[in-house]
């Protein structure tokens, strides 16, 4: 439930990039949201418009969320599988010696700006 904090964080990051590259207006932000990142994309959208109105650089920009599927790796059999479907237990061999490969993070992929 810290979507608003994350949105502020994203805006701050983009403001830094914009200052560096002399960008004055951002029209779109593409975000990669991990499937098990505990960030809820709908909440992000809710916070987005509200937070962007406070920033001249960001005002009116669109947030596009790309969901990155969560993948778990099994140390016992070396295969990977969908985390959300099978959680900690490997569906190939039943082992619990598994760890999350990806799908836990949030990353800004790119922005469209002038």
């Amino acid at each position: 439930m810290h979507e608003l904090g994350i949105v502020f964080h994203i805006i701050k990051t983009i403001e830094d990039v914009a200052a560096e590259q002399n960008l004055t207006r951002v029209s779109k932000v593409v975000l990669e949201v991990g499937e098990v990142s505990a960030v809820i994309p709908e909440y992000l959208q809710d916070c987005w418009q509200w937070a962007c109105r406070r920033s001249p650089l960001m005002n009116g920009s669109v947030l596009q969320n790309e969901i990155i599927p969560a993948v778990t790796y099994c140390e016992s059999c070396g295969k990977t599988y969908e985390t959300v479907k099978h959680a900690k237990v490997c569906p190939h061999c039943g082992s619990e010696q598994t760890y999350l490969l990806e799908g836990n993070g949030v990353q800004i992929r790119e922005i469209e700006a002038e």
Partner: protein
Amino acid sequence: MEFKTTEIKERVLADNNEAAARTRERMRQSGTLLVNLMGSPGAGKTSVLLKLIERLGTQYRIGVMEADVDSDVDARTIAATGTRVIQIHTGGLCHMDADMVSRALASFGVEDLDLIFLENIGNLVCPAEFEIGADVRMMILSVPEGDDKPLKYPLMFSVSDVMLVNKIDTAPIFDFDFDAAVVRARSLNAQIVCVPVSAKSGRGFDEVVQFLRMRLDERRQMHENN
């Protein structure tokens, strides 16, 4: 002018990791141990703190950072013990991030302290997601919350070094199964240290104090060898 696409490829928590690393370094430099105390609202964070101050306060110089959305009730309680305390307001946010902690530590001053506790926001989800650069992550699960919490909030149990099961004095009233909670927590985190405690009766605190003393001695030795 045309809109052009700029690749960013920046982790949203990258800043956070950097600030956490800064805090870790600051603690090492000053020979101070930082403990991040987490748990649901009402789990007993402040009560446990009071017990730990009582047991460790004569031997170690302790500071407390109280994070709250918008009050200073806990900070007053801690201040009444004569302990140095700083109140941090998160302004509505549900967790402390590493940058907030780093800035708070800078104004708090850490050089003359051996041990700093951060009482995090009462929340079993968010604080687990923000590594703040603590040396010890201590979470409190209280008996009335139920022994199924590791199943429902796995991340908190995965990132913690210590799980205190507080309010163990109320176990007969609630059907809390301590062993089941431990098995569930350990399936997420094999190394987690689990201690049943009661901030009311003081039960279990010998073990917690011993654990913290060990970590404090390690930190002190590391500092002296530098």
